């Protein structure tokens, strides 16, 4: 049992991916522990997105291994990964514009209930209404719950987008720039929300983000990537004090 408790949620070993002559990711290894918020930072072109897409099954790495709760998932696609408990958000807004906010949340979890055929002619909300309402409350979007998601402001849609990733109670949530395009007052709100969700749901998060204050404040550990390689992994304090990282990235 202690073994299982200490087992990393996500373990990436020597991952490599090249596009032609460009080695986008050149041998990256790291672990994400249960309940951890793990940040990934690095300049543009450092391989963060390629790494992310590999972990999400969008692309298959050339070599290396990705394990989820001890299971090798390197070759699995996005659908299979989601069913195994990986949630995600996207860099750009990805809500279902013509559905209400509530339906957006329900559809985000309904496919985890039963089989396709047991869902045929099943109740419309798949008995997920209460769960959706709880997240709607937590995200302070109750006043727009019955509006179509496409009619909301950017910030509200961003909140819906993030909430959707949590509906199916995933073990691991990958957040791709959750603060991109969000106004500064909401950045703090998102940070608070993610901290709360991390405490209440015991899930692990991986966050890619350019907003340094946000990452330093939110993450338990941070990995710095430069030119497809890991430059450093450590707590925010360690990263801030790392001379090499300061020179390469945080320098200015």
């Amino acid at each position, binding site marked *: 049992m202690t073994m299982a408790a200490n087992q990393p949620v996500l373990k990436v070993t020597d991952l490599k991916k090249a596009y032609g002559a460009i080695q986008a990711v050149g041998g990256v290894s790291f672990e994400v522990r249960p309940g951890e918020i793990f940040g990934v930072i690095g300049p543009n072109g450092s391989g963060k997105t390629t790494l992310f897409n590999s972990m999400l099954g969008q692309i298959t790495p050339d070599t290396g291994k990705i394990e989820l709760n001890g299971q090798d998932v390197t070759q699995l696609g*996005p659908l299979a990964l989601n069913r195994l408990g990986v949630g995600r958000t*996207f860099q750009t807004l990805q809500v279902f514009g013509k*559905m209400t906010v509530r339906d957006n949340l*329900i*559809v*985000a*979890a*309904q*496919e985890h209930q039963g089989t396709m055929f047991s869902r045929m002619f099943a109740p419309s909300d798949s008995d997920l209404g209460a769960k959706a309402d709880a997240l709607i409350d937590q995200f302070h979007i109750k006043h727009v719950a019955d509006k179509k998601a496409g009619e909301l402001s950017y910030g509200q849609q961003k909140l819906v987008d993030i909430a959707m990733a949590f509906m199916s109670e995933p073990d691991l949530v990958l957040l791709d720039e959750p603060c991109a395009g969000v106004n500064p007052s909401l950045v703090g709100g998102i940070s608070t929300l993610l901290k709360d969700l991390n405490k209440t749901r015991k899930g692990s998060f991986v966050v890619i983000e350019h907003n340094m204050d946000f990452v330093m404040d939110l993450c338990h550990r941070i990995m710095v990537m430069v030119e497809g390689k890991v430059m450093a992994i450590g707590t925010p304090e360690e990263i801030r004090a790392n001379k090499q990282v300061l020179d390469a990235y945080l320098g200015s």
Partner: protein
Amino acid sequence: MKKLAFLAGLLGLLACIFVPTLLKNHGIYLFTYWLIYVIATMGLNLTIGYAGQKSLGHAAFFGIGAYTVAVMMQAGYSFWLGMPLAALGCFVVGLVLGFPALRVQTIYLAFATLGFNTAVWLVMRNEEWLTGGTFGINNIARPEAFGVSLDGNLAYYYFVLAFAVVLGLLLWGLLHSPWGKAFTALRDNPIRAESLGVDIRGYTLLSFAIGAAYAGIAGGLFGSLVQFIDPAPFTVEASIMMYLMVVVGGPGYFLGPLLGAAVGVILPEWLRFAQAWYLFVFGTAVVMLMIWLPDGLLSIPDRIRAKRQSREASAARAANANQRSAEGVKA
């Protein structure tokens, strides 16, 4: 809004039951024709309107259904054996046609399905031993239901109406189950849907297969209505017309096919006075509709609602501003 739609549906159903009793034979025939296209385009609305798959091959399924029932009845089998076979056959072929949709989308998918329609049409025209070729199949009988002959036009109309109502209710149930949300999610954003565990492969294939089954059933009813089929009503042109019916009615609106099929089937009759100008009038109407109502006729209530909401919102903003400036004066 929901109550209003329900009431409109109920009134529409009552109209469908009573209006034909006042009509002459040709009118009843036209109503039956319309209902058959309603059934076919209900299926196409699922494929295009709800699941977002651009299909230009729907008339092929309509044809497969018609020929299946006709050939079976010619061979001496009952309509009641031919019809399920038509639906099942179209479901399976529809499933197969769904596979290109897993690789290509939008206009490319439209062309793939168009190619399929052409191939099916050629089989209908060339395989004389099975389909009668360009001579078609004659004297297709009207079926019996529960020992009642459906030879009369009004009797057959009610028979088709029963099919339309049952198939409509089934589709309504399906769309208001989790499947409806999954189809909509697939249409709005397939990549996001997949990341949430929606099996987009499965739902894409099923949207084609179910849509095709509806067309197959409609085709079977069509054969018995006109009692003579040849390949002409199952061309690519017919598929384009069905697509147009869905778009005109309002893709993704449940009652869209009722209006769309009316525009496609009944409007040409009303425009007969225009004679040679008919296609010109029809074409112009479609162009204008696409410019001003790209989401179809049934998007009108939504548009009015949206306009009212934005008017109310700006009125509220103006009132707020006035109040603030008034308070400013007081201070």
